[in-house]
């Protein structure tokens, strides 16, 4: 089974997407927690900002990240002709 350049490009784009989304995941979780005490005086929707991010904001971002990944990868599968059964 020989991989073509198209295959390699598909994989590179997958890695780029995965890396980008993981960077957002990292920032929303660990950066906000690290600076939580410094951000505690900022108010957002009646909440202290770090509390809101930990209790709600980060969760919304996680759901959106996973949605984005599923949608984009399913598109890439079609674009590069690698979806199941397309062979």
């Amino acid at each position: 089974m020989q991989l073509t350049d198209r295959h390699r490009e598909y994989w590179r784009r997958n890695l780029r997407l995965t890396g980008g989304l993981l960077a957002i995941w990292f920032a929303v979780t660990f950066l906000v927690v690290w600076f939580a005490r410094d951000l505690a005086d900022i108010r957002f929707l009646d909440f202290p900002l770090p509390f809101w991010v930990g209790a709600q904001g980060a969760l919304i971002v996680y759901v959106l990240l996973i949605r984005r990944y599923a949608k984009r990868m399913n598109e890439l599968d079609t674009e590069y002709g690698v979806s199941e059964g397309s062979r």
Partner: protein
Amino acid sequence: MPRAFAFRLKKYYSFYTGGFVMFVLALAVAEYMGMPDQWIGWTFMAATVALYAGIGIMSRTADVAEFYVAGRRVPAIFNGMATGADWMSAASFIGMAGTLYAKGYDGLAFVMGWTGGYVLVALLLAPYLRKFGQFTIPDFMAARYGGHSARSIAVLGTILASFTYVTAQIYGVGIITSRFLGISFEVGVFVGLGGILVCSFLGGMRAVTWTQVAQYIILIIAYLIPVVYMSYQVTSVPVPQLVYGAVLEKVTEREDAIMADPAQVAAREAYAARAESLSRRIAEVAAAPGPNAAASLAQLTRERDVAVAKAQPISHHAEPFPGHTEAERDTARLNFIALTFCLMVGTASLPHVLIRFYTTPSVREARESVFWSVFFIFLLYFTAPAYAVFAKYEVYTNLIGTSIVELPGWVASWSKLGLVAVEDINHDGILQLAELTLNPDVIVLATPEIAGLPYVVAGLVAAGGLAAALSTADGLLLTIANALSHDVYYQMIDRQASTTRRLAVSKGLLLLVALIAAYVASLKPDTILSMVAWAFSIAAACFFPALVLGIFWQRATKQGAIAGMLVGLGLTLFYLVGVKYYGMTPWFGITDVSAGIFGIPAGFLTIWLVSLVTPEPDRATRELVESVRYPSLKA
């Protein structure tokens, strides 16, 4: 054909949801007409367990693919619900809002950890495992890293992580049934066991999947209704997640008032005095040790620690990492981050979650299914912080400051189980905050009563908690039994075994494991809840590095993976047992619960180093890796 199947499922479950809502309304009417509380509890338990049993019996199967992976035809959205129920255990349903109540901001590590982990599942594992398409996680390890050694270690990790977890579920079932049915805890454990076995035993993954969808619907309705109700009562907006910021502000005001109130200060000082006198007793006993000195020392120290904690001024609910000194606050922050990390990576490594993604019809649907899973999980986790704040508001405004002889009935009924305690230490006949001991596990179960909601809501919440515990226990038992029957018996002992025999072995083991777990749970081990958190560190350190590198790094070798799994698992176990039981000094102040923070990087590093000095994987392995990366390639 699959579309018609999905359509039929949607129809069935819509009818089912409507039927369940009608059932709850009918009971509400019956309560209004004078049906006693105990009957309502019984009706809820009996009806829901009979329902699960019905689905289990209807889905019984003798087909291997149906038994292990539900025939691989579970549509994404339903797999999402089943994963949600599988995932949300007694700890999520009963424990989490309670932890948030007790710890405030610092409890959010669980909320973020248990949802954020799905980002890792979605991006790094689920689609690739679905493409690989076998039955268990040890299957993947064996195919990718060759031979029985990788498989055996994976089986060991699966059993270690899943068994502690399943014991905690059965423990939760015991608490719920004994409180709401009025039977003893030990009997409750075995009643719950029946409810668990009727599904997994008859129909394996197929029955468990369709029951879990039903259980998800019950548990989410049960979780949302009390909070929505309280939110409407307090703020007249029935969307608790949006409006509890204002309630949080009121809680903060109450916290300040409680800090300043002289009666509250007096109660705290009384506890401080008790702590001091206990410290003197401890010194006396230690100076002149008599018979049983060790036991009485331990007892006195426990009492002293409780008194010290009660003497502390309270910290604000939303304050991150409260502490007396900067160093204490930094350690709290480090522990928060370590715990979040371990819970996330552990989520992405627990075998009972990962095998759910073998059940979808395609890679595409596996990706979408993670989205639906996290969405359905999100609905509950997004609400838990609001639940905690509303519960705190009710307790701080309506309970604290009332006369002790006039306390509401729920205090007495939960005191009987030892989960609530009240002590009038300053003899003023009024309940001060320090005088009330609430076990975090009662917050969710007792909140409907605390807020004065109809008893139907309390029964509904109990049924929801039961659904959460039963569904997770089912998934876990099946995972353990499959690891033993498929990986050990079929793959390693008897490759010629007939399908009838394989299923018989699987069912026998299921029964055996369930009985052992129920026995352990009935002993009420007091460390059981912290052991659940261990399961995450254990699974994370054992599986995550080998799984991720197995997919993303072709060069990872058999020797590397075996060494990495052993080092990760070994270091994690060493750290948590050392710190918990042998008084080892924690490294950087990290608690035993987050032991994986050392084990996970050690696992990655070991796989990397050992792989580089061992010969490259053979061609077949490289082709396997390629085949999981491209949905269209055949293995």
